[in-house]
């Protein structure tokens, strides 16, 4: 079976806006993560990370927002298991907590 086409790659960026413009930016259809992570800066601005396509980032720049691209570290292995370490249910996982008072 042929692989389904993949979505357009998206980039990570940090938006910097004046605090009073925050509601405006939250109205835009942008991926802010599960919830927006807004950080107040000393200069009265706020920053928030976003995920967007290159064209979306360009639109934001044209609208006057400060957009700083985040260089995603390449080659990181976040580590997803290969195969099945629990052997189809014949092996049970062990918890990470320390068992006490046995």
């Amino acid at each position, binding site marked *: 079976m042929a692989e*389904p*086409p*993949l*979505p*357009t790659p*998206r980039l*990570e960026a940090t938006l910097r806006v004046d605090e009073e413009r*925050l*509601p405006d930016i*939250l*109205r*835009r*259809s*942008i*991926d*802010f*993560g*599960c*919830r*927006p*992570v*807004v*950080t107040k800066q000393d200069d009265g601005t706020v920053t928030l*990370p976003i*995920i967007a396509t290159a064209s979306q980032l360009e639109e934001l720049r044209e609208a006057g927002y400060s957009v700083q691209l*985040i260089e*995603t*570290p390449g080659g*990181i292995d*976040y*580590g*997803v*298991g*290969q195969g*099945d*370490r*629990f*052997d*189809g*249910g*014949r*092996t*049970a*996982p*062990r*918890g*990470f*907590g*320390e*068992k*006490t*008072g*046995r």
Partner: protein
Amino acid sequence: MTYLNVVEVESALAGLAAAYPTLCQLVSLPNPTIEGRSTHALQIGDVSADAVLFTACAHAREWGGAEICIYFAADLLEAYTAHAGVAYGGKSFSASTVRRIVDNLNVVVYPCVNPDGRAFDQLHDALWRKNRNPASSGGDPNRVGVDINRNHDFLWDFRADFAPGATSTGTLASDDPGSDLFHGTAAESEPETRNVRWLLDTYRFTRWYVDIHSYTGDLLYSWGDDLNQSDDTTMNFRNPGWNGQRGVPGGYAEYIPAADLTTAQGAAQRVVDAINAVHGGHYVSLQSVSLWGSPGAVTYPTSGASDDYAYSRHFADCIKGRVFAFTLEFGYATSDFRTSFHPPWPDMQQIVLEIDAGMFELCAAAAPSFRWPWIVLFRRLWPWQIWDPLARFLDPIVRQILGAVRSRAQGSQR
């Protein structure tokens, strides 16, 4: 160690069910995913007891929720069997607490609500959020999928239910399939959403529900559509008179009984304190709609979210039990999204310890030290097929009588 792939999530649950057959059982969810995957939950303890439900990975890229649930279940079962307590860094639970949880509570964990999305994200590193339903995409890969956490039956029709100012908010929900917040073609249109509802329906004594997400280091309590208020009972999500006015500052605020708010805030703080006790973290609890710690400064209204749906059920249907519902956002923002959503595994292991301590704390708070035998018998034997229709029939009559009594009492006071 590494993150679990979707096959391993299922086989881990099967492994626990096989290793502890007298303490837990594998529960098959009725709705296979769009890509044909069947999923399971693990039910631990007595099904006739009050239940605590944990779900995770509704959002595909938030990988660690599955591991949090599975290793929590493993700790609980292992400690109970060994007559042991459990310690997570600076937070510990005694053997008697573990025993009380398993003996007097029904703990249900559903580690991977959205396995299609998880498999896609783990394969393609796409920062994918939604499920993989292509029905509304028109063949465009950028328009595939529905956001499960905007697909629940709570103020789902956001264009009618919310104020125009809120509907333009990029965080509320979207009817554009190209958006990460696409809410589907109808409430509960997605099999993943229906599976969560099925768990709430099936475990009718569910009293607590936590939907695990990442990442902002928050524990969020209801409501998520607007600010809370406890004065005006008519200002609520069921009242169509308030349609078109929700989700913007001023005017509408969602009714929550004062006692419920106190209970929800107290439980949230207790869980947060337990999480922070593990490694000295800085998780906070706040109302779901609040973006900042101070309520109302900048709000983040949501439509069709799981926590609001779970808590709203008993208002909407008299036979549903009251479920105190929360969204837990594990982890913290790092320098980039990928590391925030799925931290390197050694960091994730530390997060698992923290959140598992919070889950234990909630269960410890929920588990009674004693249950009346007649209540246990009542719950096991009561014919709900007869009682539920009868209760629905009697509810408006009882409400009418109570209302008449109340207004007569108020009249005689004047």
